[in-house]
């Protein structure tokens, strides 16, 4: 009976198309990026000139590149220290209410299925200085209009808020799923012992969902390193490069300015930084959050 399912010819045939695409669009690009990061190729000419580590030393001393690194850092910090606490708070709240639970869960998730480009446009309208929602709101409090996206002091923050608006609900649903899978007896036992809702949330539920919070932090770090489309749509990296992130800087160089070699150097650095940040996080934080069983 095993013969039918052992047929190596059929096996190869089934695996082949997927494997080819995977190698072509995942594995080959990594090596190609590494190769071109050591060249000064413009992306079109016939000759590819070897440049040694010049691109790397250029990047590491390129002030505008470091601004983009710092902005990716803002994405990480904002998601870990602003978004994650909100995610935990709202997940706990939703898990504890009886009425409208389904509505909350469905509605908070909605922004994360939308196109980031369209959300960027939508929020661009909200931030519009003269007729946008934000300035109309603060106008009610008597505050002067703010040029949210064209003022260097506010542009990055405006993008971070939009990004948080889009993704917070996504993670809430994830954490919520973890909370709802905790056996109810634990909570009931604590309730019988007289623990209040807040005590049960902080002493029982919270410690039990530490692993999933850790996953959420990992995913938001990965997401923060990838951020690009929202920046391109909302500010194109401006004003004066103040909202540039690594990925937009890479695109700007390689595709708009025909510095393909240097663009790939930035791509490699995105890889390296992502690896370093996630490895550091794993070593310093995630390993301490031991596995929890119930």
């Amino acid at each position, binding site marked *: 009976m095993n013969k039918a399912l052992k047929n190596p010819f059929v096996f190869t045939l089934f695996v082949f198309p997927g494997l080819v695409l995977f190698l072509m669009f995942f594995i*080959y690009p990594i090596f190609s990026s590494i190769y071109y990061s050591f060249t000064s190729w413009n992306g079109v000419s016939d000759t590819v000139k070897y440049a040694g580590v010049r691109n790397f030393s250029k990047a590491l001393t390129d002030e505008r590149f470091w601004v983009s690194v710092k902005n990716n850092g803002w994405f990480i910090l904002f998601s870990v220290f602003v978004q994650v606490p909100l995610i935990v708070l709202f997940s706990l709240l939703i898990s504890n*209410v009886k009425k409208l639970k389904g509505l909350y869960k469905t509605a908070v998730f*909605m922004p994360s299925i939308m196109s980031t*480009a369209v959300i960027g446009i939508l929020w661009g309208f909200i931030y519009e200085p003269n007729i946008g929602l934000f300035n109309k709101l603060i106008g009610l409090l008597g505050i002067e209009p703010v040029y949210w996206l064209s003022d260097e002091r506010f542009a990055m923050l405006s993008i971070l808020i939009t990004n948080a608006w889009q993704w917070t609900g996504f993670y809430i649903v994830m954490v919520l799923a973890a909370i709802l899978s905790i056996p109810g007896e634990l909570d009931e036992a604590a309730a019988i012992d007289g623990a209040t809702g807040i005590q049960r949330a902080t002493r029982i539920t919270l410690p039990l969902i530490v692993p999933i919070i850790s996953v959420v932090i990992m995913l938001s770090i990965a997401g923060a390193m990838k951020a690009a489309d929202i920046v391109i749509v909302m500010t194109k990296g401006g004003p004066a490069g103040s909202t540039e992130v690594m990925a937009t800087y890479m695109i700007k160089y390689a*595709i708009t300015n025909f510095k393909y070699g240097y663009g790939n150097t930035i791509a490699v650095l995105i890889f390296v930084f992502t690896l370093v940040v996630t490895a550091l996080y794993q070593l310093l934080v995630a390993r301490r959050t031991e596995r929890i069983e119930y």
Partner: protein
Amino acid sequence: MPRTLRKSLPHVALLSYLLVILFPFLFVLFSSVKKDNNAIALNPFGIPREFAFNNYVEAWVNAKISNYFFNSLYISVLASVVSILLASMFAFAVTRMRQGKWNTILYGLILIGMLIPNNALMLPIYTIVRKLGILNTHLALIIPYIANAIPFTIIILAAFMRTLPSEIEEAAVMDGLKAPGIFAKIIVPLTVPAMVTVFIINFLGNWNEFLLANYFLSNDELRTLPVGMVQFRDQYQMNYAQMSAGIVFSVVPVIVIYAILQEKIIEGVTAGGVKG
């Protein structure tokens, strides 16, 4: 603290959050039927006094939203269907066929794909697409979209296929079916529920994709909805009422899909996220 207050406090917090989520949509919806910027500025929060539905006609016809819409639709559907087909063949081979260590090696290789930040791969993919001579055609998006969805799709479908009991195949082999027959007649029909979930997720991903669509196509006729919208905004910078109508066109299909299938979408996305 009185009991009723304590019970309603979480709802106050949650309803405020809900308001923050939903109000921007409502703002755009209201703005889309207001006459012009002036009408929006005078009454930013409220329901419009007169309804200018011609904003929708303008956006759909003159700004070619219809064109972008159908480009997006067919690219997204085609890419999602093909990636599911290829991924299910792959998943079938590595979970149900017996090739010993090859099953593990190939599946492990695919898992690596989930760890790669695919934005950083954009430049080499741009070059591949150019070398294939398909830059500035729809294939420049369709093929990378198919490839991009493959790891996630394989992982979800493989997880599902592993749960099917092996007795099914034994019976099928007794009836004289070969591996392709088992795949097509037995495994695929049983995997349909998982495929539907993955299809929706891939579809939404393709429908929303911006970076490749923005840089790999320069012909306006070929553009997809997110890119077309951004262009539309840049052109009609000053006409926010029409721009809002454009936003509504690009958001409504997604909301409708979500309203009908939200259980499946949430389930699929969180499954992929937690396990990946």
